């Protein structure tokens, strides 16, 4: 599991996750995600290269996302593959973090 970031227009930080967000994957990104939640305003988390997502991985996204929201920031998810989307749906993640399949809509939501 790797995590990298790239700045976008409008003060958005794009977070690129790549690999399996299982227990080991979650442990690999936790610290970086928490730092990003404490130092960013808008996070666009790109899930398109995440091939697996379990509940431990979900916590690694939801906990920093909620922390950022409490500071007045916003988070959106981008491009989950169908099985990852099913995990997000089964956990009702859309209630608290919007999920998009195109960048323009996600950016419009964040700014």
């Amino acid at each position, binding site marked *: 599991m790797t995590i990298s970031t790239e700045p976008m227009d409008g003060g958005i930080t794009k977070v690129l996750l790549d690999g399996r967000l299982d227990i080991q994957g979650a442990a690999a990104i936790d610290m970086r995600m928490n730092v990003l939640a404490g130092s960013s305003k808008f996070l666009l988390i790109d899930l398109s290269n995440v091939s697996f997502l379990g509940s431990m991985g979900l916590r690694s996204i939801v*906990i920093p996302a909620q922390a950022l929201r409490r500071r007045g920031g916003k988070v959106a998810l981008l491009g989950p593959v169908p099985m990852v989307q099913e995990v997000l749906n*089964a956990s*009702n993640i859309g209630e608290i973090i919007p999920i998009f399949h195109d960048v323009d809509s996600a950016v419009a939501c964040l700014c």
Partner: protein
Amino acid sequence: MKMDVSQDRLELDSRLTDLARVQPWIEAVADRHGVADDARFAMHLCMEEALVNVVVHGYGEEPGHSIVLSCRASEGSLFFTIDDRAPSFDPLAQAPPDVPVRAAELESMQPGGNGIRLLRRFAGSLNYERLADGNRLTIGFPVASLK
């Protein structure tokens, strides 16, 4: 140490870090039975959620206890069995099937909380048995290539 993934049985220690050995084991089982990608995803997900539950809730994250996984093919499905020696704990009683999780609860939820809901959603069948000295959870997945 090289791991032998050729067997339909795997013994784990009750530590979250030891669960890393499960993924290659499931892949090897799935390869042998020609399991498609979506079914593999469901197998990985359900086994991870069930095993997190055993380690965190069953054993209270205390290492040094055995968890034995086994797999068998029968009647068009693959059945994974998880045997542990933890105190009696029925994970299926923890999350009723008809109560959806509220996403806002996820951050305060203990590891494994939402996992049981995912287990219910992605498993083909689930069966819990209380054994004389532990627990047995059997998770079934329909596999097209076995039919």
